């Protein structure tokens, strides 16, 4: 009876281990199917971490299994019993030093990649700037270079770095497109920068990741990556067919509603900067001028 329990226990542990270590297969496991350099870097470091922590976790599971099975208190257990044995310098040195080495390696990569991710993923191609505003409960994307705007979806050219400049005109949220790369908060009174890039054309799921109230669960959007030509074509189409984004329309957008995707043929010049700096916000030392310079550079 007791033996059975130990076996079930071990089996369970092994199952738990393997299910965690299953390779990131399946297209729906988004973070393991990145389509751009940023997501790729993040995937690599995730895989590296999983391998490194396994160096500790797997031996722990095996040791636990062996020790519990061997040193159970049952009659006729001939395993040694040394109740006073409680010190062993060599063993302790081993398990102080192995984690230190592992953490050392991880720390090195972490610092390196943390600094890498704040730089444009691709220095050759001119970046495109998209200004993202999280509203209650929708996403507004403004293209300062193209002078268009979209709501709850955004189109990007593939193989070109995108500089997302993020703010919020509502409770803070977080801008996350898992297949392109990790998220960053959108915060009122601030404009944070997030570099992403898509290698392949496609439709990528994006969502607000930080809870922002009642409509939060509906704040998802698609990022549609197209080859440069098609993207330019799309821009022209929006410019010629969609209605303009007036201030009144923005005021309606800013209300607490859930809306379908929309497109606008113009963006309000300076609207984004106004959102950020309204009510005395914008106390970061990196001011918007850099964003402006970049957005001009990003003009086609």
């Amino acid at each position, binding site marked *: 009876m007791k033996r059975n329990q130990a076996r079930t226990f071990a089996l369970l542990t092994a199952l738990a281990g393997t299910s965690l270590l299953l390779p990131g297969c399946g297209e729906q496991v988004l973070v393991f199917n990145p389509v751009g350099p940023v997501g790729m870097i993040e995937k690599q470091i995730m895989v590296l971490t999983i391998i490194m922590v396994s160096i500790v976790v797997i031996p722990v599971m095996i040791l636990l299994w062996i020790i519990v099975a061997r040193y159970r208190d049952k009659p006729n257990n001939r395993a040694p019993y040394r109740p006073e044995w409680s010190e062993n310098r060599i063993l302790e040195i081993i398990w102080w030093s192995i984690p230190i080495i592992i953490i050392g390696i991880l720390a090195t990569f972490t610092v390196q990649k943390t*600094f890498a991710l*704040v*730089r444009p993923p691709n220095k050759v191609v001119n970046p495109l700037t998209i200004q993202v505003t999280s509203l209650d409960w929708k996403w507004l994307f403004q293209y300062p270079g193209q002078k268009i705007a979209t709501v709850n979806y955004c189109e990007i050219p593939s193989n070109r770095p995108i500089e997302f400049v993020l703010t919020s005109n509502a409770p803070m949220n977080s801008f996350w497109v898992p297949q392109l790369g990790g998220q960053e908060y959108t915060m009122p009174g*601030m404009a*944070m*920068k997030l570099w992403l890039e898509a290698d392949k054309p496609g439709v990528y799921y994006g969502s607000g990741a930080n809870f922002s109230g009642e409509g939060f669960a509906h704040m998802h959007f698609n990022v549609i990556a197209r080859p440069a030509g098609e993207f330019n074509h799309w821009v022209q189409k929006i410019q010629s067919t969609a209605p303009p984004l007036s201030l009144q329309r923005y005021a309606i957008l800013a209300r607490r509603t859930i809306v379908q995707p929309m497109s606008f043929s113009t963006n309000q010049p300076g609207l984004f900067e106004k959102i950020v700096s309204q009510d005395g916000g914008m106390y*970061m*030392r*990196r001011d918007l001028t850099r964003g402006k310079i970049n957005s001009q550079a990003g003009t086609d």
Partner: protein
Amino acid sequence: MTSIEHHLEEHSGRSNGLDSTGMDEKHTPWNHIIGFSISLVLTVLALWMVLHHIIHAAVLFGAIMALAILQAFVQLYFFMHITEHHVPQWPFHVWMLTLGVTFTILFVVASIWIMSFGAESY
């Protein structure tokens, strides 16, 4: 019996402790007078330095912070008798204060660093 009881029992002959003077052997409280004088001097110095902008702002800030820290130690030493060994809490209260100071500096400095978004050049 705890360590305090143990310690105090050695002196249980003393009923009210009125005769115990600890460190204050002399009749004039020189310790307090010295401490008070130093604190006055330090305060006036800091005030004077700031009102006359004697040095560059960054250095000035460093200087007045140094004076403030010095003055805190004056209070701790001359008035709060932090270095007194003959107390049951020795030295644990010094440890706690040291930890407190560490976390104080950490919280203030790190908050400024964290909240200066994007100040770093990259």
